[in-house]
């Protein structure tokens, strides 16, 4: 393990011990468009869905995070990954993923995942997300 990694690990541990980070961090999901509550979206041609992933903590401490995001067609499998999977036609989709400036309060992190169906038929898409993050402590 590199020196940097050790230091980051110590930092993360210190923050967690002090703040009980696992209890404070809250990951929320919301969606607009054709998505249903379980984050699966079924839509026809030119339908689109926008998911908003929000990472916050109860004390509004500043966060630094990196997201792991995949969007799949029909079900979670490497071959179904949009747009690069072997079972997926990349021409069927417009996909944009970004961390949003406009909706953040500078403490939370707002990730936006936008998917548009460009095919002639109906598609079901599935979003999977998790975060690696650091929380600002009193001495950071």
């Amino acid at each position: 393990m590199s020196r940097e990694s050790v230091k980051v690990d110590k930092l993360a541990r210190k923050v967690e011990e002090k703040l009980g980070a696992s209890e404070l961090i809250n990951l929320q999901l919301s969606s607009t468009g054709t998505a249903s509550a379980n984050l699966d979206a079924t839509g026809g041609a030119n339908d689109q869905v926008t998911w908003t992933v929000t990472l916050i903590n109860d004390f509004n401490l500043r966060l630094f995070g990196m997201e792991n995001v995949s969007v799949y067609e029909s079900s979670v499998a490497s071959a179904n990954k949009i747009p690069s999977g072997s079972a997926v036609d990349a021409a069927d989709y417009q996909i944009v993923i970004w961390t949003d400036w406009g909706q953040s309060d500078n403490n939370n992190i707002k990730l936006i995942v936008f998917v548009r169906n460009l095919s002639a038929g109906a598609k079901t898409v599935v979003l999977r997300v998790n975060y690696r993050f650091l929380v600002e402590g009193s001495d950071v």
Partner: protein
Amino acid sequence: MSRESAKVDLKARKKTEKLVSGDFLSFSVIDCSAPPSFGGGPASGGILEATGGRDQATWTVTLSHTKDARLLAMPEITLYQDAIATANTIPSGANVDAADYQMLIWIDWGETNNNNVKIKVFLRNKSAGTRTVIFIGAVRFIVEELGEINCITGVDWP
């Protein structure tokens, strides 16, 4: 230096003075590939504007450190059509036709010196008409100094 860059530099210095000591951080936004018909890059008022039919723009956001300290950064960027409002967010806003745009945001391998952070924003106008877009954002970052991670903060621009 554009007005946008100047403003960003001032904010960066202010944060740095408070959290690190010294004048270490440099931050700039350049519009490196917009053809003239796209609106000419930085405009007055602290907003980058680009207009044109089937034109494209690439913005480069550079976060660097004068002592080459290593940086870890995450960009927060939003592109708007015409004006800053949630409904105008590209490509997802209610007032925006997503088919009008091709958009990519990435942290670039090819242009970084492994200490600075180079963020690329590419936008292509695929509509038949003219579009005005506004590019705005912030960067949250961590600076390594003498082996210690000693600040976590953000820089807003413009």
